[in-house]
């Protein structure tokens, strides 16, 4: 398989006099193979949109290399732009034009036949409303229009930043089907999202980003397998003992996520250690079950954004790869 999209060591630093320096991308890597639906996951502010903007030439990176369809960016951007359809972060449109006019102008600028406009309007379900001004559209309808504008070129690579934003459940399901169909027809789709159920359902592979660095990547089942080992659910006889148990286990070097009536542990080699450690403190286990994880828990674990009772997690509080004390491996990226 050939890579449709490659990113290596991408860096983007925002500087402002007031807030100082922010490394939005800090040596980020990503690779997407042809014909895949690729999920691009990360907490808010982790750098997903920044990555996609950089890739599309909207912002200028401070370092690293990028390639789309084997061509180096940003130099080859004019050459590949016709094969990349993209929407970036709730795209906006000129509010006084109709959807048909909006797409018509894009199609004309891209030298596409006019009937293509009607095709994509049909595809995203806006056919009957295409003559109305975009101003009168709901969020979900604007999102559909955005997807239509990305599909207009019939691209080889489709990049969608949070496409499920504002869609109704039916819309999400249609979008899912649409993407599967497009991938089946040979299109490569990159899908950024924080809605993990979606990603798990439709993606072949994922890249997980946290604070501007990649924390995990690969086919969905491999990522799940790699991180499901050692996931254990623990219940105690007395629910009130849970905080103490969490503290004890954390001290023993086990990652703990507290739930209302149980604890989720990660990175446990032998479940027996758990019961021994707890018993030493006079805490008795009523249930100790290894669990098969879903993408959501892997995500929460990897990015360290699982909710902790009594704390309000702030947006940049998540895993920083390559820093001492962090759970993830120190890779060749960044530093």
């Amino acid at each position, binding site marked *: 398989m050939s890579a449709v999209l490659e990113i290596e060591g991408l860096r983007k630093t925002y500087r402002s006099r007031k807030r100082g320096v922010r490394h939005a991308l800090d040596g980020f890597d990503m690779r997407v193979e042809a014909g895949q639906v690729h999920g691009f996951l990360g907490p808010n502010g982790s750098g997903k949109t920044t990555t996609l903007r950089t890739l599309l030439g909207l912002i200028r990176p401070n370092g690293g290399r990028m390639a789309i369809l084997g061509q180096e960016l940003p130099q080859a951007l004019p050459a590949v*732009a*016709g094969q990349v359809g993209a929407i970036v972060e709730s795209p906006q449109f*000129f509010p006084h*034009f109709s959807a048909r006019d909006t797409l018509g102008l894009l199609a004309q600028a891209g*030298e596409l036949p006019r009937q293509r406009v009607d095709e994509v309007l049909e595809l995203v379900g806006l056919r009957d409303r295409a003559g109305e001004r975009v101003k009168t559209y709901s969020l979900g309808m604007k999102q559909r229009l955005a997807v239509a504008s990305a599909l207009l070129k019939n691209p080889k690579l489709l990049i969608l930043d949070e496409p499920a934003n504002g869609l109704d459940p039916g819309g999400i399901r249609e979008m899912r089907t649409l993407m599967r169909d497009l991938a089946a027809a040979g299109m490569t789709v990159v899908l950024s999202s924080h809605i993990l159920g979606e990603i798990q359902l439709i993606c072949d592979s994922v890249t997980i980003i946290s604070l501007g660095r990649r924390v995990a990547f690969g086919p969905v089942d491999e990522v799940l397998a790699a991180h499901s080992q050692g996931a254990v659910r623990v219940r105690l006889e007395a629910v009130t003992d849970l905080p103490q148990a969490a503290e004890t286990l954390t001290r023993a070097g086990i990652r703990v996520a507290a739930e209302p009536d149980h604890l989720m542990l990660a990175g446990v080699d032998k479940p027996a250690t758990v019961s021994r450690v707890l018993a030493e403190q006079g805490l008795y286990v009523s249930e100790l079950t290894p669990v098969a994880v879903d993408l959501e828990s892997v995500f929460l674990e990897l990015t360290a954004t699982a909710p902790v009772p009594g704390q309000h997690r702030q947006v940049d509080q998540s895993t920083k790869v390559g820093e001492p004390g962090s759970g993830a491996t120190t890779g060749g990226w960044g530093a």
Partner: protein
Amino acid sequence: MSLYVTELRRLSKRRVTRLLLVLLLLGLATVATAFSFSSHQLSKETVAAAQVESEAQYQRALEDWKKTVADCDAAKARGDQDTEERYGPNCGRDWQPQREMFDPKWNLPYQFDFRAEFPMFIAVFAGAVALFAFIVGASYVGAEWSTGGMMNLLLWRPKRLAVLGTKLAALLTTVLGVSVVLGAFWTLAFWLIGRYRGTTAKVTAGVWQSIGLDGLRAVGLVLAVGAVAFALASLGRHTAMALGAAVALFAISEIGIRIAVAVLSVPFGERYVLSTYAQSWFMKQVELFDYDTCQFAKGACEPAKLVVTWQQSALVFGVGAAAVLIGAFWSMRRRDIA
């Protein structure tokens, strides 16, 4: 090329463009129509009647004057002492009415003289079309930035300078087209007013050539205004930025600098005010005088004079417009588009 055609289409689809074009048409039509009513063509009879009338007025004034002098002399003969106060020195003999003070023109209704007055109407036209160019130019690119349309377009056409340049070209072509077409109608309208309700006397080929050059300068100014508005709105990524900059520039130049040069009594202070250059652009030159060099106590005096020529205006406006345009393209090349 496809982008250029697209941009022309986008510009003409915009409501602002259409609305302002209608307003511009209405405004110009109103001025021309109203003006055609205020001008009256002078027939030979009217002119002759006016001549007779002014001759009569002259004679009446002459009689009055003679009578006053006679009254004064009579009073003097009676020995009145206050004749100086009542009739002036020498019984007002020095104030004999002169024939040339009774110009028949004053007895005629206003008649539009195409040759003498049309150049002023070129400036009026240029002002109106420049306003159109400013608002259309600023809002066209300003709205593209603020609604995300520019970003969408760059996903299709990643060559930023080409995109901005094409948009500018589309704007300037549209403004040029509007100026030329409306300018032709404007000229025709006033020529017709001159022909049927005024005079087109002495409109020689040379006059037409001069009008043509005035028109060219007017169109040049309109295009420059459009380009500057476009560049300002693109720099600030918002229509309001261009409007704000224009208001600020106007306030600084026409109010701030005027007050400053008056307070500091800078000689020829008006040469630092933009409107002086606008004026000389249309009038070919503006003469500024410095009356402070005069000591009127010593009698009549030629004040020091400074001439601002239209070439100097071209330099001022050209450099200003070029600076803003270069800034806009420079920032387009470098900036992050978020």
